[in-house]
């Protein structure tokens, strides 16, 4: 500090106590040195800085640094533009109130919103699932567990575990058509009575959609089903993802459902994702309760 103010440098030694100096091991002796000198910059832009310091052996060393200073041209504006800067205001701008605040910097940070977020390319994130093989054909999508490029729906390792999202998927095509035609007529056939219903009833009392189903609320409007799948598949195979979309506006209504193949996974997902911050919103994840009606 003292080096900056040459005037004070020479006054200080009078107050100096040598005993105190020894404590800092010579480091504080710098104010004993001649002040820093700056010469120039001259017409050629040469600037000389002379500094003094102690070297390791405690000897005084003079350091002269010669630098060349170049004035950077104002690249941004042409001469005429600089002249225009100085123009007097005219018209309504002459009597502008200070409080008018015609020009304001937005308080909001506006970004160039990319249609694809730069970070979310494809499915490269590993879900930690051993079944995930390399990157295969993207067209191959399993409808049971939602995996892409790994296996077809019929070969899904979770086929037996999964309450198939489409109730007719595993059944022979013949029975399929029977039910279809039945439903067209409009007569209701309970699932247990339908042709091809081989499951024992009882366990199937609840609607299939609500099995291991997690309700996610407080989703942001931009969240789509793939985003939700991306978020939830880390916990285990997912059989169905649904985001409620307003039919009129096409905007998400802010909630959705995720069905897990395994109940444990669903439970873990609820524990982890309830209160999780996603897209600036705090998610709520809970068991989906069957509707009363």
């Amino acid at each position, binding site marked *: 500090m003292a080096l900056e103010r040459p005037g004070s440098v020479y006054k200080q030694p009078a107050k100096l106590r040598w005993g105190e100096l020894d404590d800092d091991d010579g480091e504080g002796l710098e104010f004993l040195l001649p002040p820093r000198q700056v010469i120039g910059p001259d017409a050629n832009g040469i600037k000389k800085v002379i500094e003094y310091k102690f070297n390791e052996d405690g000897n005084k060393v003079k350091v002269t640094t010669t630098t060349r200073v170049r004035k950077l041209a104002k690249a941004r504006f042409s001469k005429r533009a600089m002249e*225009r800067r100085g123009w007097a205001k005219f018209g309504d701008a002459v009597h502008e109130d200070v409080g008018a605040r015609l020009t304001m*910097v937005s*308080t909001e940070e506006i970004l160039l919103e990319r249609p694809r977020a730069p970070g979310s390319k494809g499915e490269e994130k590993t879900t930690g699932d051993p079944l995930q093989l390399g990157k295969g054909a993207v067209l191959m999508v399993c409808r049971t567990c939602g995996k892409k490029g790994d296996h077809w729906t019929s070969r899904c390792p979770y086929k037996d575990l999964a309450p198939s999202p489409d109730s007719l998927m595993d059944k022979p095509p013949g029975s399929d058509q029977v039910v279809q035609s039945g439903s067209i007529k409009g007569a209701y056939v309970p699932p247990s009575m339908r042709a091809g219903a081989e499951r024992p009833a009882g366990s199937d009392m609840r609607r299939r959609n609500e099995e291991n189903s997690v309700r996610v609320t407080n989703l942001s409007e931009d969240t789509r089903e793939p985003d939700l799948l991306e978020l939830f598949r880390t916990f285990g195979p997912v059989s169905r993802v649904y985001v409620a979309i307003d039919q009129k506006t096409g*905007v998400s209504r802010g909630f959705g459902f995720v069905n897990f193949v395994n109940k444990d996974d669903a439970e873990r997902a609820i524990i982890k994702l309830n209160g999780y911050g996603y897209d600036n919103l705090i998610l709520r994840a809970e068991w989906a309760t069957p509707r009363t009606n």
Partner: protein
Amino acid sequence: MRPILMKGHERPLTFLKYNKDGDLLFSCAKDHTPTVWFADNGERLGTYRGHNGAVWCCDISRDSSRLITGSADQSAMLWDVKSGKQLFTFNFDSPARSVDFSVGEKMAVITTDPFMGLTSAIHIKDIAANPADQVAESKLVIKGPQGRINRAVWGPLNKTIISAGEDAVVRIWDAETGQLLLENDKEVGHKKPITSLAKSTDGSHFLTGSLDKSAKLWDIRSLTLIKTYVTERPVNAVAMSPLLNHVVLGGGQDASAVTTTDHRAGKFEAKFYDKILQEEIGGVKGHFGPINALAFNPDGRSFSSGGEDGYVRLHHFDPDYFKIPSI
């Protein structure tokens, strides 16, 4: 980026234009006073008082000394940029819609709307170097197209005039004789009125925006269609980056329908497209109404948009913008 908001106009913006050096930004609105701003910090430099109707369009001479404006008060005016003084007034019998200086500023093209039984017309005026010698007579008047001509600009070497308007056809006229030289191919052309037209910096091609929710890039000499950019909303304004291969489209739903829906559903965004790949790069939100005007700074590092909401938003790009990969 944090845009600079300029609230100098009390009515919807209609047109924005930078001067050649990119340090001044001129804005026209449906209020009667075109305004000039410093393009770096958005400070208002002055206003041009004198029009008595909505101002639809303006153009600035290359040396930034003259301004020409076209207004719904059935006149086009020449102004001294520095002092805001009126130099000359061209009077018409119908609203002036579009103005454009020729290269060299020896001529100007002014279009007038169909009004009270008159058809739309393209007027070519001689512009005198000294405003005292200025004459009001048109050098040439071109009539023909049905409906309003929303924009007319000079072609290469001031030999042609390119016009586009409500009949959705882009036409090239001979600037000497007034003959129709070319009309765009109906098959590939716009299907609805063309609202805006912007030339590239080198003048080799131009971009038109239309209410048919698309913008098209045309060759300025042969009038062949080069590219089409498809969007979700009617396009009111277009601009081309002088620096990168980007085009910007502005628009949004019709102003009359704005109050019926959520502002997010209106899509009042300036949409960036890759000029070559025709793919969307991104959108810049912010306006509360449709975007009526867009302009790129000639250095390509900032752009401004003017909306139905009366605001001009001046955006200086973040460094990230220049890293967007392109071919």
